[in-house]
């Protein structure tokens, strides 16, 4: 009995030993310095001449495959150089040249994967997308359609849903090579630009995952940050690039982002508004800083067409005044400012809605309200995304804005 017990243990031990080599995970061993960590990707159009000249024959032989209808793409990647990225503020120093911390390479390809494979052929280490934070698409590509780009990044298990996808004015590659002074790595600077604008109430949370969800929804369209590079290598958010299906159809003004945020009631709020108290006197302006937004969207059917009543409440503080022509020292003047601002806001919100209506791009998700709250109507008259894109043009709105100015700063008049 006792001996049987021992032999049983030995047998178990042997079985365990057999398993050992399987458990070490050696197939996927990849040392951190053998990885090419891709931090950012830019996607640009490419002229057919340049494409023909630079095309590599990695995933197919030249001439065997006609270029896709949208044309070929030029992909730029920003690869982190291991060891070159200083970890703390004390380390490193020296010049802030981009080229020292990252390596920017461009390739051309028929599709995303084709381009990445051409790139892999030129880079010794395996490309790793687990730390990919920024994907920049040029405006031209966004207008042609994002199918391939969305498909590739959705399919790739390494890509995070918290990465940023953005549309650039002009060439996207510029954002990969830019060398902003505040961060040592350009993509991290881009990322913090957007993350901070969320915190300051200047931009909605619009990670790639949110964009994907929005553009999948039947009653909503996706939108992306629209960015441009400025003279000092800094980056400006110039508005929302809005889509209809997979195609970009327009851009809002930077200030109209506030319109989107107000209509959706996103907090914290952070936009300033200029208010002219007397229409004929440019010196009668004050500026207010909106601190809190609230919006209620009510849906009803009016003559068989969805009608939205939108109530928006804005809380604001007064921040500056142009001249000493009038004093801000009593509730009456505050009430006047509030009235002027709310009238201006109504027009402002109506404009931005009209703008998207004319393109059939419902970035606010009004269609989702119809789908969610009037399912019978939706199933009978709308049902598909395409139908809503058309229907959205006919939808009517009634907007009410209440502005409440709470504080006027440290000055008494």
């Amino acid at each position, binding site marked *: 009995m006792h001996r049987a017990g021992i032999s049983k243990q030995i047998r178990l031990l042997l079985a365990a030993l057999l398993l050992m080599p*399987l458990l070490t*995970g050696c*197939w996927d061993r990849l040392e951190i310095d053998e990885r090419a960590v891709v931090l950012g990707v830019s996607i640009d159009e490419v002229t057919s001449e340049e494409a023909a000249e630079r095309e590599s024959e990695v995933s197919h032989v030249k001439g065997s495959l006609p270029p896709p209808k949208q044309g070929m793409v030029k992909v730029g990647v920003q690869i982190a150089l291991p060891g070159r990225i200083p970890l703390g503020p004390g380390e490193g120093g020296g010049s802030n040249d981009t080229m020292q911390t990252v390596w920017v390479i461009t390739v051309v390809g028929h599709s995303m994967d084709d381009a990445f494979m051409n790139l892999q052929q030129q880079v010794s280490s395996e490309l790793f997308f687990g730390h990919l934070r920024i994907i920049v698409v040029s405006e031209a590509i966004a207008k042609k359609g994002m199918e391939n780009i969305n498909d590739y990044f959705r399919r790739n298990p390494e890509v995070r849903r918290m990465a940023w996808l953005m549309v650039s004015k002009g060439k996207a590659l510029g954002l990969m090579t830019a060398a902003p002074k505040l961060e040592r790595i350009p993509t991290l600077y881009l990322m913090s630009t957007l993350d901070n604008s969320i915190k300051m109430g200047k931009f909605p949370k619009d990670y790639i995952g949110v964009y994907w*969800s929005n553009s999948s*929804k039947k009653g909503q369209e996706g939108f992306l940050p629209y960015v441009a590079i400025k003279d000092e290598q800094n980056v400006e958010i110039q508005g929302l690039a809005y889509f209809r299906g997979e195609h970009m159809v327009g851009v809002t003004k930077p200030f109209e982002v506030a319109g989107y945020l107000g209509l959706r009631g996103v907090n914290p709020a952070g936009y300033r508004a200029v208010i002219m108290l007397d229409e004929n006197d440019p010196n009668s302006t004050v500026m207010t800083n909106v601190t809190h937004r609230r919006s209620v969207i009510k849906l009803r059917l009016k003559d068989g067409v969805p009608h939205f009543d939108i109530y928006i409440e804005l809380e604001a503080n007064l921040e500056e005044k142009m001249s000493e022509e009038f004093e801000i020292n009593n509730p009456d003047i505050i009430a006047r400012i509030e009235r002027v601002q709310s009238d201006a806001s109504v027009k402002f919100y109506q404009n931005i809605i009209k703008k998207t209506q004319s393109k059939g791009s419902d970035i606010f998700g009004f269609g989702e309200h119809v*789908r*969610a709250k009037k399912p019978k109507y939706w*199933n009978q008259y709308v049902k598909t995304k395409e139908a809503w894109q058309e229907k959205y043009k006919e939808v009517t709105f009634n907007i009410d804005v209440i502005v409440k100015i709470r504080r006027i700063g440290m000055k008494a008049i």
Partner: protein
Amino acid sequence: MENTDSRQITLIQASAILISTIIGVGVLPLPLFAVRAADSAAPLVTIFAIGVAFLGIALLTWLGMRFPNQSIFQYGNDIIGKWLGTIGSIVVIVFFAVLTSLTAREFGEVVVTSVLKSTPVEVTVIVMLTLAAISARRSITTFAYFHTFYFPLLLVPCVLIAILSLGNAEVINLQPILLTSPNNAFMGTFTIAALFQGSFIMTVVIPAMRKPKKAMKASLFGILVSGGLYLIIVVASVSVFGAEEIKKLLWPTLELAKGASLPANVLERLDAAFLAVWVTAVFTTLLSSYFLTSVALKQVLHLKEHQVFTFILLPIVFFMAMLPQNVTHLYVIIEDIGRVGLYITMAYPGLLLLIAMLRKKRGERNA
């Protein structure tokens, strides 16, 4: 050594066995199944499925309480005769062997796709199956300890991920909560109910329970907790992604974990942590179906020990696991086998119960 008293399993242990058996590979594609069935009414369909699943387990538990010393493979013979009973048992055995292999393969596919891309799928599958085979050699008491030990580890992280991801949730995605077009809802209900089939393990647990009378309570707890978790996962993923986006994701729950992050940037994506937990969940599921298959074989062949079968089964189960040609083929098979399985895990016990009542058969009351 381990079998001094064969009736040691308590109410909590029995519920724990059920919970950790039910929570398994199915949690990953669950929201996809639910959304395909009913769009934004996915939570409702999940609730229906929980109801169906509870009905199945209730029939089995009722039978088990009627024959508190026997499992379905034994009282089946008493109720419908030796021949028919044996055929019934063999069908159940084959089904659970297939279920084991499909679970292992689905696990392998997820691992190969998302984590260990260059590890052959055969290796992940065989490691998992061997682990289950070794652990299934133990007695039912140890088997119960396995499950009781692991089940808090399964519940807490799943609930945590669901809660953390609720920050990005939008209520409008869950509306309309009622079915608007009931076409696929019926099939979908059964596809999801099929994810609860591991609960059949109850048939071998009841004869080992200290108080078989409490079996129904254990079943109820088991279904409520695991069903509740399923519901939370469906609600969380639908409210975060919206129904249409989920239709584009093969494993929405994994995607949900990818999007969730611990506050203050402690962990920026939880999919790695989630997968680690999920491996445990798959292990307990595999262990149960493997254990059930070998114990059933023992009882059908009237042997004393079930250990013999654990390693004999291994090559057969492994071979079956390798049969599906690709991941889409795998899911077609999983959905079909799952729904067919409901005849085996629900209709068969139901039929037995009916006949037992008509023929006034019941087992000995006293243990």
